[in-house]
């Protein structure tokens, strides 16, 4: 019953919005949104019967009536709290899914490089948006449909051939207004030309502790021989819900690194899908999650080896405390002609209490013969002998455990190239362990 109600809620909301955009309703862009809401009506929110949502129940999310919110005034101090100390970035601030020009700080970029809001570009360069919007992220569940139907603002990063954005682009997402249950649905596009390079930090924080829902879709297109690093930090309050879909399409010789660290949120679901659609591509997916209380973190990844001679490398680690739950599902597809594929996947989790639970499903589907694919999964607790070793050297039990957990997580941190980012994230993890 709950489910039907929330479906109707969003359908009605769509009608209200549609009524207020009279000038836009005839555009091809809005046509896509209308198709998406039709799709949403058809597929609805996922249930435990959907194989991909078997271990994650969203009934808690459906209890609330979330609605889009305007941007609110946020002080410079609040922003500064979330910056990465010592790291020079192009700062892009997004509040409740809306780009905030006043708070953002973008350096002057080379010709053709664009870091702008999705809303602006829909007007100034609709062709660019139409070329990529909805082209990569297929609508296969209710959340993607909802984001597409309500797509309004977000960030677009577009880099032409043979160019680079020197510093990291930090997309700082703040959610909440203290009065209503905010629904923030940023739609981000990253389009990278041939031989170009971009690094993006995507961080999510709350500005109030009311229940909110962040439902993001990122679409990424990598040109030939381009490099893209996407570093995601999720540190929202424990009442927020977070659904993220990142879909990347890679061309010949490109390299994509996705790094995800999940610390906050009540229910967090990350879907990271990449298609290696050219020879000699490399896809790296690294993830770490630390959960406590009744948090529920679900990481789904899909690596689609569509062309020969590609590599993929995947490593996810989790540390679970209290009554929290962790889910990992790693799918690797190797298509019929994707010979000489090399795919490696590893998934490890540590359970600290008797009440936490991990469900994991590393899945390989292979249709080519000349491939090397392996995956490993291990779930257990801290090695008592290692704890004893440290304690016998005069280190207190609590510290000993902390040291071992940090060592466990270190494999993931070692993939970071920026020292500032490394230190910052390391500190956050350390704080969380307290």
């Amino acid at each position, binding site marked *: 019953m709950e489910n039907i109600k929330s479906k109707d809620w969003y359908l009605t909301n769509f009608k209200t919005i549609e009524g207020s955009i009279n000038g836009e309703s005839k555009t091809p862009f809005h046509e896509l949104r209308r198709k998406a809401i039709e799709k949403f009506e058809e597929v609805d929110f996922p249930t435990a019967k959907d194989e991909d949502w078997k271990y994650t129940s969203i009934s808690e999310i459906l209890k609330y009536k979330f609605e889009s919110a305007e941007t609110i005034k946020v002080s410079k101090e609040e922003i500064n709290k979330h910056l990465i100390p010592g790291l020079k970035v192009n700062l892009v601030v997004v509040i409740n899914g809306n780009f905030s020009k006043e708070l953002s700080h973008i350096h002057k970029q080379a010709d053709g490089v664009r870091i702008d809001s999705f809303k602006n570009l829909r007007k100034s360069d609709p062709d660019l948006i139409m070329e990529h919007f909805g082209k990569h992220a297929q609508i296969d569940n209710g959340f993607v449909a909802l984001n597409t139907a309500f797509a309004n603002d977000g960030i677009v990063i577009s880099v032409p051939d043979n160019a680079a954005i020197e510093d990291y682009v930090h997309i700082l997402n703040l959610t909440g207004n203290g009065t209503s249950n905010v629904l923030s649905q940023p739609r981000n596009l990253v389009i990278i030309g041939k031989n170009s390079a971009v690094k993006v930090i995507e961080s999510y924080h709350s500005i109030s502790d009311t229940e909110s829902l962040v439902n993001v879709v990122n679409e990424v297109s990598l040109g030939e021989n381009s490099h893209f690093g996407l570093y995601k930090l999720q540190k929202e309050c424990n009442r927020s819900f977070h659904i993220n879909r990142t879909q990347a399409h890679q061309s010949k010789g490109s390299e994509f690194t996705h790094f995800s660290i999940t610390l906050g949120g009540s229910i967090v679901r990350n879907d990271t899908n990449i298609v290696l659609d050219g020879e000699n591509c490399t896809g790296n997916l690294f993830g770490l999650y630390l959960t406590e209380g009744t948090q529920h973190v679900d990481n789904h990844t899909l690596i689609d080896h569509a062309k020969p001679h590609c590599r993929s490398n995947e490593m996810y680690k989790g540390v679970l405390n209290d009554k929290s739950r962790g889910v990992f599902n790693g799918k690797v597809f190797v298509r019929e002609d994707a*010979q000489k594929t090399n795919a490696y996947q590893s998934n490890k989790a540590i359970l600290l209490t008797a009440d936490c639970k*991990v*469900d*994991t499903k590393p899945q390989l589907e292979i249709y080519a013969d000349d491939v*090397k*694919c392996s995956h490993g999964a291990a*779930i*257990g607790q801290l090695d008592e002998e290692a704890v004893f070793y440290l304690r016998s050297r005069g280190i207190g039990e609590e510290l000993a455990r902390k040291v071992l957990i940090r060592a466990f997580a270190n494999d993931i941190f070692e993939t970071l190239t920026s020292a500032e980012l490394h230190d910052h994230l390391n500190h956050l993890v350390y704080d969380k362990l307290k």
Partner: protein
Amino acid sequence: MSTELSNVEELAIKDYKYGFQTEIDMDTLPKGLSEETVRAISLRKGEPEWMLEWRLKAYRHWLTIKKENEPHWANLKFPDVDFQDIIYYAAPKQKPVINSLDEVDPELLKTFEKLGISLQEQKRLSGVAVDAVFDSVSVTTTFKAELSKHGIIFCSMSEAVKEHPELVKKYIGSVVPYTDNFYAALNSAVFSDGSFCYIPKGVRCPMELSTYFRINTSGTGQFERTLLIADNGGYVSYLEGCTAPMRDENQLHAAVVELIALDDATIKYSTVQNWYPGDKEGKGGIYNFVTKRGACRGVNSKITWTQVETGSAITWKYPSCILQGDNSIGEFYSVAVTNNHQQADTGTKMIHLGRNTKSTIVSKGISAGKSNNSYRGLVRVHKKAENARNFTQCDSLLIGDRCGAHTFPYIEVGNPSAKVEHEATTSKIGEDQLFYLRQRGIAMEDAINMIVNGYCKDVFRELPMEFAVEAQKLLSISLEGSVG
């Protein structure tokens, strides 16, 4: 374990060695399934009232889950099975009362001889007691006298229903209830026969028990029901081997096997499955939808499943262990080979409930031709299962560039003291390994056989000797012609 090079003769008959049909008069029910069919089966078998009631309950349950909930989640593609187009009961008309082998229909004996399980020979040489299931009714049971000396009951299911109703009543459906799944419900309603074995307290079964299954008569679905119980401290090793004649239409086989191990009991269940896989174009072949499950009820009990799956057009089979008793152990060793258009979706479930329970899974998949081979497994550690330990290794070997190998492992851990490890690899036969063997004058075909046999060694080691030899031969026959 050395690999025997197949000689010319063996290669010549490799297509499907066991494709023939025996001409014996059959007492068959008309095609189709209804409550009447269920009653008729029960009547013909002279079953007591409670058994019929149980069958009808299962049938009624099956009706409620029909069609829309027919399982489609497996990674398999096949046309819908028409359950009204199947003969549910076929018994050799001339039902012999056996005192000695002389009384057995000579045609039947010939069939067994062709299958290489001549009863006399079995009796004389190997000391294996064979409960031969010819289509649906047990025809002869050997070594019964010897076994009964130890108090072991080893007979057909229909006999057990009549003679040991208290045991059957207590245990049937206790591991695989008729509500378990679509095919288990179907089986519970119409099961024709199967084997029943009870090992009393503290008895170690002196010989390997064995059943040979055989599907005969075109259009007969075979619905075996096997129940094995090892009481406190009992031990039994049970072999199951299968062959079927070459038929053109798809035949359905939906068996149920239940194992129960009480305190300190051990059950070893080994299967070699070599049913008709269909021809090179994927026409014909057996649909093998089996529910196999063992319950380690008692403390220190142990169940080992070993299977070599080379046959069937479609295999859908997950021999599982429910580790209820403290310190109980579940093991699963599997080699699944698919060639041409065969499809296999097989694996295991290890459900850890008791403390200090251990499970080991070793699965070796080999896909060749245009076949698809999936491993689907579940390891679940319940909240109360302290110190549970699991090790899983599932490897896939690909031969040819049009086949598929897939793994779907589910791991659910609810206790922090659990140690669960999972490893999986997929690769093809190494060029350098092949080159090494070839340069020593070994033919391509033999070289591949050797490498494949080496790859499967971990599993073959678990099989009883006679079976291991047979399994190796089967493997080379199945992979025949897969290398260009």
